[in-house]
Structures are given as structure tokens and as C-alpha cells.
């Protein structure tokens, strides 16, 4: 067992940390306050190769491994969780599934502009009536002479107002009301119309919109994977995607810890630094321990994925632990800062608001537990049957 990062991974982590701390972190509070999507930032990330970290070079990416990508998401989210969300959805939920499920023609057509960051990617699954139960979605795709006509409405689509490529899920079989009637499509910005920008608790530098698809006509070459196999695409995407969200949670919690530690060493009450009170020391000790535990689960899940090993259960475990840890520990960071923590003079209240989303998107904590239980019970069943 070797816990050390490779030289490439360390360099990529150091570069992202340096870039994020100089070019992102100083603006994060402003973007949050103004609810501003920092469009100008993404060409800079693209120039460094951060919009296609784990995409092979032949498809315009940097050719690094999945763990490197996870380190990038952690560092970006440590500076600004909204930027982390934008890059996570762009990469894990749009670029990678096209790479995995696409034909050669689809990969060479859609992936390079995404990996080079010339085009932003989005993932459109959720609808007003279809959240955790995504298989019940109602957006329709009807066959015609040379392709499909798609009609419907999607909700809470990250990057939806800025994306050029959408991985969109629609029902192609009206007879089957569940997941088995769903097909994945690759759409362009011209096929969709962004309507309402959502107002959120946090993650304000990430854009979340509703989109309408109003009888968009697309050719057969826009079907990703096979018709009616869209749910396999969606689930495969979320298997890897949730490792990214877990990394985001670790990054947010790390930022909260950094602030809390620095503050505890400076703030004086009762003639002492508050870091001299055991109550505060124990909080910091618990924070650091839980962050490290979550980080280890996240890195392990990432490693399993890049080794091509089963990672559905481990990824769900990483996301469950990391997101709940981040919610708890960002709250503890506020507690360490006291009243200052509750104000916008310090970033910890933002970390707290941002952390909450990690328990919800790419599968709620309840759904993660479902996934974990399913993988536990399925393998237990197999062991029994083998006896």
C-alpha cells in the first residue's frame, strides 16, 4: 500500500492550488455576493489544461489520470465551490460520458472542444417531477424520418446558460414509463433555451438554470450509446461524478479548517488565544481528522475508478461521508469564529452554505445510502448463493 501521490499528481495539485489561491480565492466572496458566474475565468483554466484534466491527449485533454482530476476539483473547490461545480459538471457529467459511451465519430466531434475548454458542458437529467426518481422523466424524443424531435423542460441545469454541449436524457419509448424507456442525447446550445436562473442558498458563482427543449430536431448520430440505454449512461456518469462532488466537499471543508485554525491562533479572549482552550483544540482535532478520513475515501474511490475496478459503492461511500462531514465541519468552523463566523467579513458562512449542496446533487445522501446498501446486499447475496 502506497499513500504517496505521484510526481505528476503532486505537480498538478501544486499548480491548481497556486492558481486557485491567486486567481480565484480573492474573488470568491465577490462572486458569491453578486451571484456572478465568472465567465472570464474559464479560458484561463482552459489554457492551463484544467478543463480536460483526465481526457487523453488525442482528444484535446491533458492526459492525466482520474485522481489528478479529483485533486484539481478539491483545490478549485477549496478556493470557490461554485467553480468546482462548474468544472465537475463540465468534465465528469458531460465530457467523460461522451468519451466512454460515444462512437469514434462522436468522440472526435464533441470531446476535443470540451476538453480544450472552448465549449462548456452540461448534464440535463433532472425535471420538476423527476429528481431522485430520474427514471420517471417526461421529456419526450419522437422518431421522425432521419432522427428525433425532442420536447420537454429540464430543471436546475448547472452551466445550462453557458454550455455549448448538453448531455440530455429523454424518453424515447412512451410505452415504458420507467428508466428503461430513456435515451441519452448530445445536444448543442441551439437546441435548448435557458429560461429561469435559480436563486440559491449558496454555490452562487455556479449558474443553475431551467431549460426548455422546444421541438428540437436532431439526427440519429446524436444518440449516445443505444436507444433506451440512456439510464445506463446516466448511472455510469453519476458513478464517477459523485467522486468529484465528494472531492468538492473535502475542498470546502479544508478551506473552512484553514480559516478556523488561523483565526483560533489569533483571536484572544480571557487573556489567551482561543486556540489555547481545549474546547477549541478538540474541535480543530476533530475537523482535521474527519477531513482526512473523507479525503482518504475519496482518493481511494478515484484510484479504484482509474484502475478500472468496481467503484459504485466506494464512490457513494466517499460522497456520503465527505458531504455530511463538510456540512458538519463548516458549521464547526463558524462556531470557532463565533459571531465573526456568522458575518460576511469571513468566508466560513459561505463555506457552510456551499457545503450543503454536496448532500443533495448527484444523488442525495439518502440515495447514496440506497446505493451503498444495494451494493452490500447484492454481494452478500452472491456469497450466500456460492455456499
Amino acid at each position, binding site marked *: 500500500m502506497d499513500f504517496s501521490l505521484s*510526481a*505528476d499528481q*503532486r*505537480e*498538478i495539485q*501544486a*499548480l491548481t492550488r*497556486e*492558481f486557485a489561491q491567486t486567481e480565484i480565492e480573492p474573488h470568491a466572496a465577490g462572486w458569491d455576493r453578486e451571484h456572478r458566474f465568472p465567465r472570464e475565468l474559464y479560458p484561463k483554466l482552459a*489554457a*492551463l*489544461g*484544467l478543463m480536460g*484534466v483526465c481526457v487523453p*491527449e488525442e482528444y484535446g485533454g*491533458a*492526459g*492525466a489520470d482520474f485522481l489528478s482530476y479529483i485533486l484539481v476539483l478539491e483545490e478549485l473547490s477549496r478556493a470557490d465551490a461554485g467553480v468546482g461545480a462548474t468544472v465537475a459538471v463540465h468534465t465528469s457529467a458531460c465530457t467523460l460520458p461522451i468519451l466512454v459511451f460515444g462512437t469514434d465519430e462522436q468522440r472526435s466531434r464533441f470531446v476535443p472542444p470540451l476538453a480544450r475548454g472552448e465549449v462548456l458542458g452540461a448534464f440535463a437529467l433532472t425535471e420538476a417531477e423527476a429528481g431522485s426518481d430520474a427514471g420517471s422523466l417526461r421529456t419526450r424524443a419522437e422518431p421522425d424520418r432521419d432522427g428525433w424531435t425532442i420536447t420537454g423542460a429540464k430543471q436546475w441545469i448547472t452551466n445550462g446558460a453557458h454550455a455549448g454541449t448538453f448531455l440530455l436524457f429523454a424518453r424515447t419509448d412512451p410505452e415504458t414509463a420507467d428508466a428503461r424507456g430513456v435515451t441519452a442525447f448530445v445536444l448543442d446550445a441551439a437546441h435548448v433555451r435557458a429560461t429561469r436562473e435559480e436563486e440559491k442558498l449558496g454555490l452562487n458563482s455556479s449558474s443553475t438554470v431551467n431549460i426548455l427543449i422546444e421541438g428540437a430536431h436532431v439526427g440519429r448520430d446524436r444518440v449516445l450509446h443505444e436507444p433506451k440505454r440512456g439510464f445506463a449512461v446516466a448511472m455510469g456518469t453519476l458513478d464517477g461524478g459523485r467522486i468529484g462532488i465528494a472531492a468538492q466537499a473535502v475542498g470546502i471543508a479544508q478551506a473552512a479548517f484553514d480559516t478556523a485554525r488561523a483565526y483560533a491562533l489569533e483571536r484572544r479572549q480571557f487573556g489567551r488565544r482561543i486556540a489555547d482552550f481545549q474546547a477549541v483544540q478538540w474541535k480543530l482535532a476533530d475537523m482535521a481528522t474527519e477531513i482526512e478520513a473523507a479525503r482518504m475515501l475519496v482518493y481511494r474511490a478515484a484510484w479504484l475508478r482509474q484502475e478500472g475496478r468496481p467503484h459504485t459503492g466506494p464512490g457513494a461511500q466517499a460522497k456520503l461521508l465527505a458531504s455530511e462531514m463538510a456540512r458538519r465541519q463548516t458549521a464547526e468552523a463558524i462556531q470557532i469564529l463565533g459571531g465573526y463566523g456568522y458575518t460576511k467579513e469571513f468566508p466560513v458562512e459561505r463555506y457552510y452554505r456551499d457545503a450543503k449542496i454536496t448532500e443533495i446533487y448527484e444523488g442525495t445522501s439518502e440515495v447514496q445510502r440506497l446505493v451503498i446498501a444495494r451494493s452490500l446486499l447484492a454481494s452478500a447475496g452472491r456469497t450466500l448463493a456460492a455456499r
Partner: protein
Amino acid sequence: MRIAVCVKQVPEGAAKRIDPATRRLDRAGEGALNAYDANAVEEALRLKESAGEGEVVLLTMGPARAADAIRKALAMGADRAILVTDDAAAGSDLLATSIALARALEREQPDLVLFGQQAADSDGAVLWGAVADRLRRPLISQVAELTLADGVVTGKRQSEFGYDVIRAPLPAVVAVSDSINEPRYPSLKGIMGAKKKPQETLTLADLGVESDRAGEAGSRTEVLALSEPPSRGESRRIDGDGAAPEAIIAFLAEKRLV
């Protein structure tokens, strides 16, 4: 055109620790490319890019771990690297270091040798002088603007009363100031490509440096004592309660600074 850039691995972070027993800098922690050297690497890359040809060669002396600092500079875009590493070189002061670096540079015969203004660990800011002297080449230091044309390097540097503009024929040695440029971030492609670039490891014997001219044996610097810097005395804190600007102006006036 061949540009050599001398770079150093220094302990990461701002806090320096000196081991009271050996009176040497504690180098046990993580290391990183000396930030001042990133300015020299950046300038070399810009010179190469604007010339449209040339080669940027990195040169460092240090423990094997110093390869990490080289990797970052390679990732920024340098073409290849030479690492001088030898157990006998441990504890070299700048005199001993200058011998080894000069020997390596004699082998390479670069048109221009670039240094950063100083190393962030020892803050000597003299090594480039010693190396230039050993190579018997002209030296321009503290260069904030650099141009190359027709075999002549021109360096502009700020002085107390204005600017000095200094010209020197190539081959020459230049130490750049940290205001000369904003070093680029290495790209991921650069990072991934760095390990494929040629990296040569040389011993002191390869360079013909005699063992009594390297390491502690070859060093002439002696640390006699260490002491804490004098305390800054009473400090006063002015809180931002509305009357702060007046309080600060009154303070500055009292010290006759305004």
C-alpha cells in the same frame, strides 16, 4: 542560441528553521523551486520565444530531491535539465557551489546564463557574481528589463536615482530582478511532458571538481553564532472604529514620517 538558467530547490513556505546543532538550514520539509528563479526561467522562455529558436537548459546543484524544482521549470517550458548531485557536495557554501556550477556551464557553453536575484532560503544574492567571475564573463545584475540583439545583451535596472542601462557582449551572465516579469503557470500538458524531457545527472567527478573544492571541505563560510533578530519593540494596534484614519495620521506625524 543557448540559454542556461541556474535554479535552486528551497524549503517550501515562508518559515525558515535553522538547526542549532549544525547551524545549517533545516531542509527536511517539502521543497519547491526558488520563486526568484521562476523569474529567470520565464525570461529565458520569453527570449527563446521571441527569437523563434534556441534552447533553455536548466542547471541545479543539490540533493536528488532537487529534481522536483527542475520538474516545475521543465513544466513551464524549459527544454532539458542538468542536476549536479553528489554526497560530497553536501554543505557547499556559495564559493564551493560556484565552482561546480561554473564547471557545468563551461561544458554547456551557453550564450547567456540567467540567475534569479537570490535564493529564498539563504538570501545571499552573490552566487551569480562568483559564477560570472569564474567564467570570466560580464555580469549584469538586478535586471528589470532584458533585450538581446546582435550578440549584445542590454539590461535595464532601477537604481536609487533612476535607471541604469548596461550593455554587455555575449556570452554573458545576467541576474534578473523579481520585477522583470510575471512567471507563467506551468500547464498540465507541460507537467505531463516534463518527465519526457532529457534530464542529465552529473557527479562532481564528471565535472572534474576535486573533492577538496566541494562540500564542507571546499567551503570558506563559517557560521560563528546564531541569534534572534532584535524585537520590534512596542507595537500599537489601531482598530477600524471610524477614528482610525486620524489615529494613523497622528502616529505618522509623531514619528515625523509625514
